[in-house]
Structures are given as structure tokens and as C-alpha cells.
């Protein structure tokens, strides 16, 4: 049909008519159709709940990462004030990584938030549509029982049929959209489960290598200062720099504080 191709309304009308043809007797299928709509609306609601769950999980992950960033920053400071620049650098590198991850996570979260809003808006519209349909359904049922209005019935049946087809179309779109967004939300979760974020947050339990090295550093400097005190008491010179060559502290100039030349620090 040549005249058809140019207009949107023609295509949509044809689509609605096609759906309408399938319903043999709108009167009979009214209740079934209505029940089906309610079911589909539940599906849309469930889709929203799923997106919300995904979002919450990612938010939790984001909080953990934030804590991790703070912790790594503190550790870098501790390491640097203990004189271990290398360890401080390692902590800062990890902090950078965690921050990058945090940013991408926050982007995902705000995307999910947008999806959630869209779905909720959809659900609201759909519910209004179903309510409208319920009214029409009651009208046509009342008219059927008043058997004298025969002519009016067939006209009304067309109207209700169209209404049914339209609500069906709206449903189909809402369900498609929900499925789409649910799939996207679960894809984000899969990514998260694949461990991209885990590696960074599991470090936070106080037992990772930076924790360990910092603990060693603290105990070592404790030993160093005790040793210095002891030496001073026994009159063996005033500086811990006098440690025997080959001792672990002497091997690392940055550890052997006061008398080490300033050049070593640069």
C-alpha cells in the first residue's frame, strides 16, 4: 500500500488492528486480559526491585572502597614518616587504583539510579493505564448485561478492543524495557563479582603486605630506639648509626636515623 509508508500513525494503527483481530470476542477475554496486565505489572515491579538490589550492592562496594582509600592514605603517611618511601609509594599507587575504581563504580551507580527512576516512571504510567482499562472493562460488561443496547455494544466492543490492544502494546514495551535494564544491571554486577573490585577491598582486613611491612617497620624502629637508649646508658656512643656493618638496619640507610647524612634522604 503506497499511501501507508509515509506515516507513523498508519503503522501503529495497523499494529493495533492486528492485535484487535486476534481477540475474537473482547467481552470474553476482558477479564483474562486484565489479569494478565496485573501479572505483567508485577514483573515490571520485580524488575525495579532487581535494579535497586544491584544498586545497593554496588553502593556497599563503593563505601568499602572509600574506606580503603582513606586507609591507604594513612598508611602512606605512616610509611613515609617511618622513612620508608618505597612502601609509601606502594600504598599511594594502590590508593590511586582504588580511586579510579571508585570513580567507575560511582558512574555505574548513578546510571542504575537513572534506570530505576525511568522504570518507576514507567510503572506509574502503566498502572494508570491499567486502572483506565478497568473502568472501560466495567462499562462494557454493564452494557453487555443491558441486552437492548445491541448496536452500541459492537461499537463499544471496538473501543474496548482497541483499548485492550493499546494496553497490551504499552505492557509489551514496559516489559521489554524492564528486561533490558535488568540485564544491564546484572551485567554490572557480574563485572563486580568477577573480582575487579574485590581485589582492592579485601586488602582492608589488616593483613595485607602494606600492613605487614608497616608493622615490621614500627617494631624495627622501636628496636632501634631501644638500642640507642641502651647504648647511651652504657656509654657506647650516642648514635645508633654505629651499628655493626652488615646488620639489617645498616643495610638500609633510611632506617638508621640521626647521623645518616641528609643526602641519603633525597
Amino acid at each position: 500500500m503506497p499511501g501507508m509508508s509515509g506515516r507513523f500513525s498508519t503503522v501503529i494503527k495497523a499494529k493495533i488492528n492486528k492485535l484487535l483481530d486476534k481477540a475474537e470476542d473482547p467481552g470474553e477475554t476482558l477479564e483474562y486480559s486484565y489479569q494478565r496486565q496485573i501479572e505483567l505489572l508485577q514483573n515490571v515491579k520485580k524488575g525495579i526491585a532487581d535494579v535497586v538490589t544491584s544498586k545497593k550492592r554496588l553502593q556497599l562496594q563503593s563505601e568499602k572502597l572509600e574506606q580503603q582509600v582513606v586507609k591507604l592514605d594513612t598508611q602512606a603517611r605512616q610509611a613515609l614518616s617511618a622513612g620508608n618511601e618505597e612502601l609509601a609509594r606502594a600504598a599511594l599507587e594502590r590508593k590511586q587504583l582504588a580511586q579510579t575504581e571508585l570513580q567507575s563504580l560511582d558512574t555505574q551507580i548513578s546510571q542504575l539510579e537513572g534506570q530505576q527512576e525511568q522504570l518507576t516512571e514507567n510503572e506509574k504510567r502503566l498502572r494508570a493505564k491499567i486502572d483506565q482499562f478497568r473502568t472501560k472493562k466495567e462499562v462494557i460488561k454493564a452494557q453487555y448485561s443491558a441486552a437492548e443496547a445491541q448496536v452500541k455494544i459492537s461499537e463499544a466492543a471496538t473501543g474496548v478492543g482497541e483499548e485492550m490492544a493499546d494496553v497490551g502494546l504499552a505492557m509489551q514495551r514496559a516489559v521489554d524495557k524492564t528486561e533490558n535494564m535488568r540485564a544491564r544491571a546484572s551485567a554490572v554486577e557480574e563485572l563486580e563479582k568477577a573480582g575487579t573490585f574485590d581485589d582492592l577491598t579485601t586488602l582492608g582486613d589488616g593483613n595485607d603486605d602494606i600492613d605487614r611491612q608497616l608493622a615490621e617497620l614500627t617494631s624495627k624502629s622501636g628496636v632501634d630506639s631501644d638500642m640507642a637508649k641502651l647504648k647511651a646508658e652504657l656509654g657506647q656512643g650516642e648514635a645508633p648509626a654505629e651499628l655493626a656493618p652488615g646488620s639489617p638496619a645498616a643495610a638500609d640507610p633510611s632506617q638508621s636515623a640521626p647521623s645518616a647524612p641528609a643526602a641519603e634522604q633525597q
Partner: protein
Amino acid sequence: MIVRISGEGQYHLADDDVSRVQELDRQAIAAVNASEHDRFHELFDEMIALVRDRGERLGDDELVGSDVILPPPDTTVAEAEAEFSGEGLIPG
């Protein structure tokens, strides 16, 4: 004439306005075919607004078939393209 905005409801619309809607409709589809996405949204939004502003909403208890049925107001370009490439253009 009776115009339905799919997913929204039905409106009484004067014949002149219906002609204008159909003209906008034609242009919107031309825009889709020319991949002019912004232009499509412009025309489509104008079309929907025209029906809403100039039309008179039918009550929920009025049961009549429509003369013209427009797509849902939030129709995307992708959806419009799909209608006109794939299973759209239903013969008859």
C-alpha cells in the same frame, strides 16, 4: 475525529488539527529515514503536544474506536526505525 496517543488515551480533535498532525507525522518519518534524530524528536514532540493542547480528552467510560493512532509519547528513534524497517509497514 478521534485520535489516540498510544499508552495515554483518546482525544477529540478538529479535522484541521488532524491534518496538521498527519503532516507532522509524515515529516517525522522523513526525518527518521534521513537519520535526522533531533529533527525527529522535534517534530514528534510537536505532534504529541498539538493533540494534547488542542484535543479534548475522552472520558474513561467512553468506548469508541480511533480514526488515528499515534505512537507512545516516549517513542525513541530506535523504535521508530524498527517500525519502518523490520516488521513495521504491515500490508493491509
